[in-house]
C-alpha cells in the first residue's frame, strides 16, 4: 500500500490525514466546537513523537481518534496501514494506551489489573504470566504487585498504567499526558521508564504533553498544536533553530571598540543587537562561535569581559508561532474580561 513509507524511506506507523473533529453544540442548536481542525502527520517506526500544546488544543481528541475511541468528523487515520474507522478491532490489538487519568481498579492488586487487561485481549494468565512478571519488574513494581492499587503512590499508579498498557505486547504505545500530576522527580523517573521500553522493545511512542520540557527531553519529533491545528512539526532542535537558533551574549570591557561589524562578519551569525556594553548575537551554533569570537576580538584589540550562550526554548518557539505565550495548566486561555471566557472549548477566545 502506498504511504507505508515516507519519501525518505522511513517506516510509517501512524498516518493521519486531514483529521477534523467537530463536537456537536449543546442541545443540537448551538454550532459545534471544532476540537481538531485538519491535522496531518506521520509517525515513524521507533520514534517518540510528541503532540505538544496547551490544554484544550485538541491533543486528547486526536489520541482518541487514533485509538478508535472517537470517530473523526472527517479525514482518515491509519495505524500500521489499518484504517482506524473501518477496522477498529485490528487497530486496538496493535496499540497500547495510557490514559491521562489512572484507570486501574483500586480494589484489585497491580498484578490482577494486568491479568484482567490481558484477558480482554484474549490472553490467559498461563500465556502471559511471565511477561506480566517481567513488566512488573521493569516498572519497579514487583515488590508491590500483589498489593491493592489503592495503596499505590501517584508515581506507582502511572507506572502500573504503563505496565497495563504494555501487557499485550503492543509495538505502538499511546501516552496521553503521561506525567500529569507527578512531581518533577516522578516525571524524570517516568521518562526513564519510557526510554527503557523504547530501547528494550523497539517501541514507537505517540505522546501528548503540555509540558515544554517534557517534549524537549523525551521526543524525537514534536508537533506543536494550538486551537486544533498543527502549527509546527520537527525535531526539538529544528523547532528551536526556527526561531533563530542560539543567542550569544558578548560583553566587552568598558571603552572597548564596537565589535558589531566583526561579529556580523562571522559565519552563522544572523543579527547583532547592542544593549550597552553587551551585544546579543543571534547565531546557529553558539558554542562553536565562542572561541572564534574570543580569538577574533583579541586580534582586533577588543577587550572581552564575558561570553554566554543561551539556547532557545520551546517557549520562544510557541510565542513566535502563535503570538501568545504558552499557557501552563490552570491558567486561563482567555484575556480578562473576554465575554467567551466562561465557555470551555478549544476555540474559545478566537475572533
Amino acid at each position, binding site marked *: 500500500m502506498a504511504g507505508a513509507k515516507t519519501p525518505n524511506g522511513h517506516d510509517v506507523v501512524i498516518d493521519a490525514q486531514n483529521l477534523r473533529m467537530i463536537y456537536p453544540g449543546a442541545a443540537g442548536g448551538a454550532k459545534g466546537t471544532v476540537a481538531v481542525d485538519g491535522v496531518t502527520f506521520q509517525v515513524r517506526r521507533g520514534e517518540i513523537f510528541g503532540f505538544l500544546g496547551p490544554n484544550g488544543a485538541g491533543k486528547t481528541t486526536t489520541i482518541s481518534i487514533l485509538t478508535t475511541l472517537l470517530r473523526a468528523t472527517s479525514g482518515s487515520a491509519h495505524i500500521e496501514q489499518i484504517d482506524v474507522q473501518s477496522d477498529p478491532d485490528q487497530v486496538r490489538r496493535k496499540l497500547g494506551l495510557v490514559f491521562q487519568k489512572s484507570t486501574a481498579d483500586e480494589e484489585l492488586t497491580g498484578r490482577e489489573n494486568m491479568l484482567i487487561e490481558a484477558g*480482554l485481549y484474549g490472553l490467559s494468565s498461563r500465556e502471559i504470566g511471565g511477561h506480566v512478571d517481567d513488566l512488573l519488574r521493569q516498572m519497579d513494581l514487583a515488590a508491590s504487585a500483589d498489593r491493592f492499587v489503592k495503596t499505590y503512590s501517584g508515581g506507582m499508579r502511572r507506572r502500573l498504567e504503563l505496565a497495563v498498557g504494555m501487557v499485550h505486547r503492543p509495538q505502538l504505545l499511546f501516552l496521553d499526558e503521561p506525567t500529569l500530576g507527578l512531581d518533577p522527580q516522578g516525571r524524570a523517573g517516568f521518562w526513564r521508564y519510557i526510554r527503557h521500553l523504547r530501547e528494550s522493545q523497539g517501541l514507537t511512542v505517540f505522546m501528548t504533553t503540555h509540558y515544554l520540557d517534557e517534549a524537549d527531553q523525551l521526543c524525537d519529533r514534536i508537533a506543536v498544536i494550538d486551537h486544533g491545528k498543527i502549527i509546527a512539526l520537527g525535531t526539538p532542535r529544528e523547532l528551536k533553530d526556527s526561531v533563530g537558533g542560539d543567542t550569544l551574549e558578548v560583553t566587552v570591557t568598558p571603552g572597548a571598540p564596537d565589535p558589531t561589524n566583526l561579529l556580523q562578519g562571522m559565519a552563522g551569525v544572523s543579527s547583532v543587537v547592542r544593549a550597552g556594553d553587551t551585544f546579543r548575537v543571534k547565531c546557529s551554533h553558539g558554542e562553536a562561535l565562542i572561541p572564534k569570537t574570543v580569538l577574533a576580538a583579541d586580534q582586533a584589540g577588543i577587550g572581552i569581559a564575558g561570553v554566554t550562550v543561551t539556547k532557545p526554548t520551546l517557549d520562544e518557539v510557541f510565542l513566535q508561532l502563535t503570538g501568545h505565550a504558552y499557557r501552563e495548566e490552570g491558567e486561563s486561555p482567555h484575556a480578562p474580561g473576554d465575554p467567551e471566557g466562561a465557555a470551555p472549548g478549544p476555540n474559545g477566545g478566537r475572533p
Partner: protein
Amino acid sequence: MMLPAASLIKREYLRWIRAPTWVISGLMSPILYLLLFGQAFDLGKLLPAGTPASVLTHVLSGAPNYFSYFAVGMVAFASVTAAMFSGTGIIFDKQLGILQRTLSTPISRRSVFLSALTFRGMLTLIPAFLVVGFALLLAKVPGVAGLSVASGVTVLDAGQFLVAALILSVAFTALFLSFGFAAQRIESYFGVVTILQLPILLTSNAMYPVNIMPTWLQYLVGYNPISLAVNVMRMSLFGTAGYPYAAWVYLLGLLAWAILFVSLALLLASRALRTDGSPSDSALSRAIAE
C-alpha cells in the same frame, strides 16, 4: 473467544467479594422483612374467629398461611431490590475511566453488556435463595411463622420456581443496567431508581392477595412482572388451584417483560458504548470532550 467476557466477570467478582458491606446490606432488608414484618403482620388473624381455614386458603390462592404467601413474595422482592444496584458498577466504570480502557481493547461491545448482565443477574439470585432458605428454616423454629409448602412439590415444580426466579432476575437486572448505561452520575441513577422502586413493588401481589384489591389496581397488578413471577412461584409451592391461567401463561408474560427490558438495555448500552457513531449520543465521547 470466551476469555474477554470471563475476564470482566472476574473483575466484577473480585470487586464485589472485597466490598462486604455491599454484600451484607443487600441481604439485610429481605431478612428483616421476614423476621419483623412477616412475623408481625398476619392477614389470617384479621379474619373473625371460627372462619373456616378454606376461606383464608382461598384468599391466599392456595397458600396455607399468610407468612408462606408473603415469603414467596419476598423472594421476588429480594431479587428486584438487589437488581436495583445493577447499574451502579457501570456508572463507576464510566467515571473512573475503566469503561474507556475496556473499550480501547478488542473486547466486543456485546461481551461488555453480556458479562454485566450475567454477573449482576447471578448476584440478584443470591438474596432470593437466601430468603427461601431462611423462610424454610423459620418453619422449624417453634412459635415462629415460617414457610410451609404443599406436600406434593416435585423436582419439576422446583425447576419451575427456579425458572421464574431466573427470568425475573434477568428482566430487572437488564432494566436497571440500562439506567446505568444511560446515567452519567450515580445521583441521577438512584433518583430514577427511587422513583420506580415503590410503584414497581406496590403494584405487585408480593405482599397482598390480588383479590382483595380494587378492580383497577387488579389490572395493574396482573401485568406487573413481579406478580407474574410470584404467581408461578406460588403455584410451584402451593398448587395451582384458584389461578385463572396455567403457569406457562404467566411465564410467557414474564418472558415478554424480560425481552422488552433486555432489548431496552441493549439499545442504551450500545449507545453508551458506541465509539464509532455519532458522538452526540455517546456519553463516552462527551466525557472525552470535557
